[in-house]
């Protein structure tokens, strides 16, 4: 058994992935962390009180967990959903009535989305009340605010996709509110969002692309920076 492992460790495939030996000495232990993408963001030291559960309530981690659930269920929903006026609503009905576990997927996606908005907001409150926005963490607070905005935008863009009365009028009201932006920008932004002057096929496609590609990518980039900063500043 031991021999087999040793043989495995000597193969070129293994050595190309793990460029250090087994973590048996201090040096190789340090290398195991430095050369690993997932581990290298660790801080050099963590204060005991910041590991305490009642200090963070794990809200940031929960938000990330929900985001992963949303990406997973959303990706599966994308297999069945077509963002077109003729089909969107009926694809949703198909998810409800004929796709295996389709209703579960959709409900998971919906509840996780609601929960994520709530948890991200609670997370921000926690950061505020523990004063964790203070120097040197001002930049990460700003990133966090952007992440709250992306969360809310993800929730809002997803609202149109079922293409029922609720979503149609929800987005109509929302984009009409956007038109109140002063200095003549309002109409332009609203036109840009809808791809027209009212909620229709173009708006559906734009919201779909925003919901499934542009905003999630932005969120991932922001999260990467956010987590890296958290770690470097001594957080979990």
């Amino acid at each position, binding site marked *: 058994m031991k021999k087999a492992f040793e043989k495995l460790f000597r193969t070129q495939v293994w050595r190309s992935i793990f460029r250090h030996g087994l973590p048996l000495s201090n040096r190789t232990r340090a290398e195991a962390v430095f050369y690993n993408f997932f581990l290298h963001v660790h801080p050099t030291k963590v204060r005991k009180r910041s590991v305490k559960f009642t200090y963070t309530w794990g809200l940031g981690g929960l938000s990330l967990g929900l985001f992963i659930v949303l990406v997973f269920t959303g990706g599966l929903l994308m297999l069945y959903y077509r963002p077109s006026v*003729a089909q969107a609503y*009926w694809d949703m*009905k*198909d998810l409800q*009535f*004929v796709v*295996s*576990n389709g*209703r*579960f997927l959709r409900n998971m996606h919906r509840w996780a989305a609601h929960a994520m908005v709530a948890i991200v907001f609670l997370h921000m409150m926690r950061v505020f009340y523990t004063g964790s926005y203070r120097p040197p963490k001002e930049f990460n607070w700003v990133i966090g605010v952007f992440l709250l905005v992306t969360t809310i935008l993800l929730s809002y863009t997803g609202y149109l996709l079922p293409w*029922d*009365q609720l979503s149609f009028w929800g987005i109509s009201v929302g984009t009409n509110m956007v038109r109140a932006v002063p200095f003549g920008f309002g109409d332009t932004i609203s036109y840009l969002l809808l791809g027209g002057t009212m909620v229709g096929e173009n708006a559906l496609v734009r919201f779909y692309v925003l919901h499934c590609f542009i905003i999630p990518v932005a969120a991932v980039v922001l999260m990467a920076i956010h987590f890296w900063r958290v770690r470097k500043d001594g957080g979990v």
Partner: protein
Amino acid sequence: MNNLRKYFALASVALLIVLAVSPLKDYFSEWRSYQHQYNALIETLPQRVKPVPIGIKQQWVQKFDRVDRCETCHLGISEPALKNAKEPFTTHPNIYHDIDEFGCTVCHDGQGAATEYKESIGKVKFWESPIFPRDFMEASCAKCHKEQNVPEAPILNEGRALIEHSNCVGCHKIDGYDKQWVPRLDGIGSKVNRTWLVNWLKNPKAYFPQTRMPNFLLSDDEANNLADFLMTFTTPPPTAVMEKLPAQLTSASSDAKAKMIALGSTKFSEARCISCHMINGRGGYVANDLGKVASKVNEAWLYNYIAHPKQLSPDVEMPRFRFTKNDLADVVAYMEDQFVDYDAPQPPPYTPDPAAYEKGLATYKKYNCAGCHQLSAVPKAEEMGPELTYVGSKKVYEIDFGSTTIDQNLPSYLKTKLLTPRVFTPAMKMPDFGFTDEQARAVTVALLGNTDEKIPAAYIVHPKPKSTFMPQGDFGKLVKSLSCMSCHVMNGNGRLVATDLSMEASEAQEKWIEGYFKVPYSLRPILTERMPNFFLSDAEIKTITGYMEKVFVVDSIAHDVKITPAAIANGKGLFFEKYGCQSCHQVGGKGGYVGPPLDKLGTRLTQGWIFHWLKDPEAYRPNSIQPDYKLTDEDAEALTAYLMSLK
């Protein structure tokens, strides 16, 4: 640390259980259980029925842009062996359309995409078209079938006929219906008496149960004022020429009067007035009841009306009978003597109101009398009801059910409204048409079919374009004056009460037509004689036959048959032996009563007509009961020769 591991283990197990709920729910779904039940059920049947493979069954109805999954559970729809099975497995009764082409929800509504009972019948939140109630099912036919007579939909057809007959378009805009003729009210003050008018306004059906005029449920004051208002319109239409009553009507001794009445009675029946008119509920259905007319209109009006109906009442269907002045006086005397209403109800208490004209006018406008009646004082209908062209698409949330406790859906709203028009709010103005429950249901069915649903143009059955044929010239004038088209059809135009005259000259011999107008008789002994005697002059009859011989001819009917003694004998044999025609037709006083008697047929019909009629009766009269024997030309010619010999 150990505790944490325990929690982790517990949480993992809980997560697994939660994750298992969804697949389990999928597996134990309602439709799967129905399919297993179906497969178990067919095992018990004596016939061999193919079991269904487990899985969702759906139809993609491409042309109507929908997916129906009803057959996932309704598995026996096209399986006759399951005729007596319980729902959801029973066979679909009489399918007039291919299910694969039309799907289910096109007619039945409901949620076709659903695979659960509650969702599929659509009685769930946010589904606007739940399953269509069975009592009103034929309304779905009307979405595509816009033609006059929809096959296999008697209730719908009755409803549409009732809408047309009741003149609903007087107050409601409804596409596809024509406005019916209603007498104009100018001159009513010199036609009827006030007592009759008040009673009529209070309840028209008490005087004439079959009248179109609905009951507007007027109060006594409203009826009195409206009557006073209407009685001020005494000037007859400008076309009218009012003659004075002849002296013998106004000042005859009682002996002379009795003689006049007796003569009038004879003329009245000779003219066959009851072919169109009822006398106290018995007689024709084309015109109104004359049983109490002497208590309604005054004598001078009656005299002048019969003399020139269309002058006093433009566009009325009443023909102008060619009575001599004396005959006319006799008929009027007879009607005045006989048709009196002895049981007229007491009119409501009345004290003249100085503002009766204004109040009556307001009532006239309020109930939109101008929607049906013409009156010079109110030329335009202003108080129209809502448009009903798309009433079938009205949503439940658009309906005010008032304080009623009926089912909160459109069919029950419409039916209740038709039966008790003012029940939802007292401010409603719709009159009571006196519909029976069945009639109200039929009208509801026809109304529910008026939807704004988008149906592909290829599936809509349009009504046949109406013929506008109208003879011109001298014959045309006669047709108008005698209202021939109220009972006869000519080239597709007219009301078919009697016969279609479009081929008349190719069917009947000219001599016979001439004689018929002198003394009309019914061809079939089992029918009552209907054709009125208009007392036409010889010149008028010549005009009619002359026109018919030129226009009402179909060249292909002409057929030359050689009438030889041998052919006659051969035909007689075929008539009595081979085809047994005498079982329905009378010849020489013997035979059946189903068809018309054939004596003297040789003087009535043309040989070409007899020949073609025998060859293919349904080509000429689609509903004829004359059997089609698929005769050879020789047999048909021999029978024609025999029948032409009956003179």
